[in-house]
């Protein structure tokens, strides 16, 4: 096993009086593709915020890029490409695709420095990697939901990150766009050898693509290869009556639709 790039050691996160994640111990080695699943309110987004260094552990430790997460500085964060949950993008927000992707360079560049031709080349390359370079001068708001997610993935790639954190990248997209975005993420993992942490509700879509699945419900219920985690006896402990597994091993979680 290679050196872990993210290591939780009995880490608990939350606010005084409310625990969002409890006693998590988990090591993620470099270049692993990890899917994070769990019901609503199970602490998935807290996990993301913690890895980004936006939340310090109440107890235990979390080390990211060999640094305690509460001590992550801007130059560390610049190495973590992050795709937040899809918010409502103001369709009229005046930003072109290339301008939005260039923002991925700003953290790494630091204050007062202007982006150079090299930064522009990196942004163009990121756009090419997600298949959107021909849209570089389009208005971001004029693109479809799936295309916008590709642009935001390019923005994260423009940081030249070592870790890619994706918070429900397929939510709110139509089925074709969902597939194409997940395929793109898998392809980027293979080509760039990035460590990917992908939070998702869609267990069926990612089960064949990830190296490991992490099942959360405030505590860490299971972590391992998908076939070891997706066992009815483990899933039913977390999802309870909301879980249905069909004859073809298709996993349906009832509360999934509450997110749309």
């Amino acid at each position: 096993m290679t050196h872990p790039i993210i290591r939780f050691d009995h880490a608990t996160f939350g606010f005084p009086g409310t625990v969002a994640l409890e006693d998590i111990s988990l090591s993620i080695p470099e270049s692993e593709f990890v899917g994070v699943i769990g019901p609503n309110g199970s602490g998935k987004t807290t996990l993301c915020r913690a890895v980004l260094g936006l939340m310090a552990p109440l107890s235990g430790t979390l080390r990211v890029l060999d640094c305690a997460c509460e001590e992550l500085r801007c130059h560390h964060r610049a190495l973590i490409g992050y795709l937040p949950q899809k918010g409502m993008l103001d369709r009229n927000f005046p930003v072109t695709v290339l301008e939005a992707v260039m923002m991925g360079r700003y953290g790494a560049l630091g204050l007062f420095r202007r982006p150079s031709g090299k930064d522009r080349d990196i942004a163009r390359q990121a756009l090419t990697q997600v298949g959107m370079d021909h849209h570089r001068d389009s208005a971001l708001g004029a693109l479809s939901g799936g295309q916008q997610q590709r642009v935001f993935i390019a923005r994260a790639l423009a940081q030249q990150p070592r870790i890619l954190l994706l918070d429900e990248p397929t939510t709110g997209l139509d089925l074709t766009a969902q597939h194409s975005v997940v395929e793109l993420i898998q392809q980027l993992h293979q080509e760039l050898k990035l460590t990917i942490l992908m939070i998702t509700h869609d267990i069926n879509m990612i089960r064949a693509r990830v190296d490991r699945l992490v099942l959360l419900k405030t505590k860490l219920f299971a972590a391992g290869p998908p076939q070891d985690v997706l066992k009815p006896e483990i899933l039913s402990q977390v999802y309870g009556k909301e879980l249905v597994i069909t004859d073809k091993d298709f996993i349906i979680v009832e509360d999934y639709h509450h997110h749309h």
Partner: protein
Amino acid sequence: MLELLAYDFMQRSLLAAALVGSVCSVIGVFVVLRGLAFAGAGTAHAAFAGVTLAYLLGLPPLSLAIVFGLATVWITGWVEEKGRMKLDVSIGILYTATMALAILFLGLMKTYNPEVYGYLFGSVLSVTTEELLTIGGLSVVVLGTILLLSKELYFIAFDQEMAAASGVPARQIFYLLLTLVALTVVISLKTVGAILVFAMILIPASTAYQLTHSLTQMTLYSMLIGIFCSVTGVLLSYAFDLPSGPSIVLLATSLFFLAVCCSPKRLHRIQTE
């Protein structure tokens, strides 16, 4: 019209108007995109309360305007950050409380002071050389800071959390933006007045917003519109003996409605729907 430019007071007024027009319209881009419009309106009233207190105590008016403006804008930012109270409620309270203070201080003055009302309604034609130097100095500070940190300011206007996550010191930049808003309000008090200053921040930027899909173009258009409206507004005000603040703001408002009607974005949306 050209002989007007021979007068010292007219040169000062036009220069003050151009400076205020450019500073307001550039900071306005970030205010509009970051959704801080109402916060700025509250700051303008707080700054006026500072002016009235300064007159009451015999201090330079802009000194306390800065103190009151900064206090209000920082409290507003803190409330938004903590999310403990709805932003419109907290600003509404600060807005009216500082206006009440201003009225109280006016009431405590023994005599009627037309200069104070100049800060409420704007009187660009009476800008003195010292005031022009203050406006110029503060304009250089505000525009210079924006120029140096434009990429960070654009990023937090677009998405502050994403900016923080990618290594931009987003929180510090947000407070810096609020500080620049307060300074801009103070710079503009004498020219357009506390009641109308926020129109000068919002309207040119909102007009530019209608016209382009690019951040850099929006900033450029906003600046050109701001300077044009301020300078033309002053000339109209002199030519037709109108108050200067309303002349500038109503000219900008007319341009805004024209831009809404001709907006390529809106026309494109209508065509695609």
